[in-house]
Structures are given as C-alpha cells and as structure tokens.
C-alpha cells in the first residue's frame, strides 16, 4: 500500500483557475506534464504551501496540509515536502557544504551527508561557493540539498530547463536515483516528452488548470494524440517490451512487444528476459498494403487500421494501427502510429478496418523497467 497525496483544490490565478481533483499514489516518479501555462508550477506551489488555495483539501497520508472547511493551512516549512526549483536557489552566502548542512540540520530523518555528497558527485565541490558552479553542478547540489531534508514527497519544477542536451543526459541519472537510491517519491514537472518517457512511472497531464489525464506512462503517452497536446510534440508510440533473444553476429536484440517480434541494435547492459521501454516515432513508420519483399527494413508488424486522422490543409495524415498478441502470458493489444502523406493514404486506398503492414525504420530505447 503506497502513500497517497490527495489533491482537491481550487485557486483563481489571474486569467485562469487551477482546479484539480486527484488522488495520487506516491510511488516512483510521477510526471506532471503539459504545455506551458497549464498551471503545472502553480499546482506545485499549492502543494508546497507557497500559494494558498481559495478552497479545497490537500493531504498526504493522514496528514492534512490544507482544508478550507476545517480552516487548516499548515505553513510550508512544516510540510514534509522537498522542492527543487528551476534555478536551484542555493544560498549564495554559504559554501556547497554549508548549503547541504543547512538542510541536514533541519531534517526529521537523518541521511548521512557524506553518502549524499558521493551520490551526487559533489566531493570536489563542497568548499565552493554556489556562485562559481556551472548550471549542471548547481542543479546537482540543489538536488542533494533537497534529498537531505528526507521529504515524504519531492516536487521538481522543470529541473533541467536551460541545460543543453549533453548536460541533461548528465543530470538524468541523478534524478532517477532520487527514487531508486533514496526512495523518495517525486512529482516532476516538465513539458519535455523525452524526460517523461525516460523518467516517469506515471503521468498526470495538465491543461488549462485541470488534470486531463492520469495513468501509467505508456498508456498515457500512447493516447496523448487524443489530447490537444498533440501538435506540440513528435507523435510517437511508446511500448513496453521484453528482451527475448540476442543475435551476437549482427549485434541485434530481439524484443517482444505485445506479441510482435522486432529487433533493435544491441543495448549496453541489456539481459535476456529484461523489460524495457521503447519509443517509435510516427514519422519512422511506413505502411504497405501487402507484405513487402526486398526492403532493408527488418521490423514489420501486421495490424489493422483503427483510425486515420487527416487534416485537409496539411500534407500528412496519422494512421493508427492496432496489433495484438501474447505478452507476458497475457493477451494484449497495442497501438502503433504512422505518419504518412495524405497522398499515400489515397494511393493505397487506406480505410479503417484494413489489414496492413507497418514498416518500422527505427526504434529508440528509452530505458529499463
């Protein structure tokens, strides 16, 4: 039985209203995902207590932090919430070590400070002033500082914004370690779909101040197209798969996704039997009406067209295929999206219900499960 964070709050903010009603199981990393201006940061501030809701209820487990009916409003410093701000917000008049000690001294549960310094690779930086750190170093130090408060839940407000891709890759493992090594459940605000698919166990989608969807990452992201968020992101399909075999000669792995066998390039550290998460971009999927011969593409999945979304003013259409099969002993179906021109759609005379072949040009590995 995991802890739950119960959100039921309303707050009018300038032009729009944050109005959320959701019971969140606190386990692993929950991404709070949505376009900018959706109210994601405002929701974090309401949870932390930096903003006071107009009315509603907020509690973690049996601890009530806000309740308008009972006139409860626990001040931020008495809530066991960690908060990682976009810019880190280290105290400029203290060294990195003093920043960490500030947090450790005030924590209810003690986590050995040296363990955290090592875990976040800060050993050489402890004597430095935060003003001399690089963007990535500052974030690592801020993550370490918030871990030391041993929070019941950690709120991360776009912690990687403003870092380049290489720097992000460097920090991501540290974010993953929050849950894996320190067992702190996280709510992670982002509008970057790659961060969501890489990090999150669950996703809460927010738009216009409301939670429009909540569920497992794979389910939510594969249905994301149904939401108005679609246009902002690369359309893609996300799958969980199991590594079933390995071709040493050609450096390929065989993976079973919902009954379909596909192969992908060798992944370092992958073992047979392991579950992994994969993403296939719609633009990397072509469609053939008959099983193709003499093509270089190895991954071909047969499926039935369940939906064709085409905009008369655009060149492209998005075709959704449904395929099914045995996966981990269960009969499951999955959806695969393909982005092809409307002209091809018309040439092949594609219709819903038609059985076609999807040719998958590339698959990207998103992480182990």
């Amino acid at each position, binding site marked *: 039985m995991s802890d739950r964070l119960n959100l039921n709050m309303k707050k009018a903010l300038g032009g729009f209203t944050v109005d959320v009603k959701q019971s969140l199981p606190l386990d692993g990393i929950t991404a709070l995902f949505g376009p900018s201006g959706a109210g994601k940061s405002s929701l974090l501030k309401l949870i932390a207590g930096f903003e006071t809701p107009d009315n509603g209820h907020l509690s973690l487990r049996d601890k009530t932090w806000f309740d308008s009916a009972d006139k409860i409003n626990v001040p931020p410093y008495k809530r066991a919430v960690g908060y990682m*701000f976009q810019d880190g917000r280290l*105290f400029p*008049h203290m060294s990195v070590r003093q920043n960490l000690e*500030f947090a450790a001294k005030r924590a209810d549960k003690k986590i050995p400070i040296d363990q955290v310094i090592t875990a976040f690779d800060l050993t050489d930086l402890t004597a430095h002033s935060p003003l001399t750190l690089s963007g990535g170093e500052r974030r690592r130090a801020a993550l370490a500082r*918030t871990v030391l408060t041993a929070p019941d839940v950690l709120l991360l407000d776009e912690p990687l914004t403003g870092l380049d891709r290489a720097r992000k890759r460097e920090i991501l493992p540290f974010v993953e370690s929050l849950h894996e090594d320190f067992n702190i459940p996280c709510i992670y605000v982002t509008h970057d779909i790659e961060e969501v698919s890489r990090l999150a166990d669950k996703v809460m989608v927010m738009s216009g101040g409301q939670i429009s969807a909540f569920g497992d990452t794979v389910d939510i992201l594969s249905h994301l197209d149904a939401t108005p968020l679609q246009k902002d992101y690369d359309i893609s399909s996300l799958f969980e798969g199991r590594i079933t075999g390995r071709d040493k000669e050609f450096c390929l792995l065989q993976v079973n996704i919902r009954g379909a066998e596909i192969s992908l390039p060798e992944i370092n550290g992958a073992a047979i039997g392991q579950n992994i998460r994969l993403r296939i971009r719609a633009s990397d999927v072509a469609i053939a009406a008959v099983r193709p011969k003499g093509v270089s593409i190895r991954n071909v999945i047969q499926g039935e067209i369940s939906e064709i979304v085409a905009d008369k003013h655009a060149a492209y259409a998005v075709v959704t295929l449904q395929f099914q099969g045995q996966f981990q002993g269960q009969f499951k179906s999955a959806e695969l999206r393909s982005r092809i021109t409307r002209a091809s759609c018309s040439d092949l005379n594609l219709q819903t219900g038609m059985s076609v072949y999807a040719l998958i040009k590339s698959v990207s590995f998103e992480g182990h499960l």
Partner: protein
Amino acid sequence: MVDFGPLLLTFYLAVIVTVILLIIGTPLAWWLATTRSRFKPIAEALTALPLVLPPTVLGFYLLILFNPNSALGAFWVDLTGESLTFSFAGLVIASVIYSLPFMVQPLQSAFEAVGTDLREAAASLRASPRDTFFNIVAPLSKRGFLTACILTFAHTLGEFGVILMVGGNIPGRTKVMSIAIYEHVETLQYAQAHILSAILLALSFCVLLFIYIFNRRYPVHVG
C-alpha cells in the same frame, strides 16, 4: 574654551537611538518587506512621514504628547517622577521617531533584495520564518544593516528642530551639539561655533563617504 559636554551628550544620544531603532526598526522593516497586508502602504507612509514633516511640526506634537497633563506625559511622571519634556528620555523618544525612516528604509530595501525565492527555498528546507531571517536574510543584508545604522547615527547627530522643541537647552541633559552651536552664534561666540561646526561637518562627511565607498548596492533615500 570650548565645552565638549554637548559633543559627548550628542554621541551618547546617537548611540542609544541607533540601538533602540535597530531593535524596533528591524522587525518593522521585515514586516514591510514581506507582508501582503493591505495596510502596508499606510505603514510605509507613516514610517516615511518624518522625512517630509518640518521638524518643528513633529516637535510641536511631541511636546503636547509629552506634557505631564497628557496621558503619556502623566504616565511617565508616575513611572519616573520626572517630566518627559526637557528631559534626556524625551529627547531619545523624539529622536527615535524622527530617525525611524533612516533605519527602516535601507533595511526594507535590503530585505526585499534578498527576495522571496530564497525564503521559499529555506521554507522548503524546513526552516521557520525566524530561522530563515537569522540564517539567510540577515547575513545577506549585512550591508543594509551597516547603511541603516550609520545613517541613523549620523542623522541623530545633526538634528536640531525637534530637539529644540522638546528638549530645550539644558547643559548635560538636553544641550546637544546643534543646540550648542546655535547658542554660540546667538551669543556671538563665533570661534566656539566654528570648532563645533567643523567637527560636525567633518564627521558627517566621513560617515557619508564611508557609506558610499562600502555600499553601492542598496538604494538609500536620504531625506
């Protein structure tokens, strides 16, 4: 021969006023810097009032307030057996009110410069508001404290109008430097007036020079 009694009395007064204002001005400035209350503009206007009010007006009201027939004046007489008017205690109270903005405004600017961001960060690390003030805000406002204290001290050294109204000119009790200079001029003792004036001028200049050299960070509104 110049009487240095007024010089010592002036310093004594300035030190006491600075210490008292540090104690009451700091929480007031902290409240002004952090409150979302709708009464904030009223409190700010009241704090700034001594900057624009003619000292004689302030002195006049204080004189009425200190009068043994008024509530405060009578209370003071009951408490100490002495009248507040024409006493050193009256001088201290008057100076505290008169110099209030010189302590509060630089502190408020300094506290505001620290910003809500770091206060939120401290709260997220389980630090109470008091803890945050002493360990985060105050150390980051060091220069603001220095400016506020020096300005308060210097301003108290130079006041004249309020003191003349409520303190009069009693040697050893209320005869501060500005009053002594005034008296020397009145009685045509220009040499003595010169010496005291030169000391006050040099001192004030040194104080301001010190502030401007060491502190260019916080805006200071010198009235």
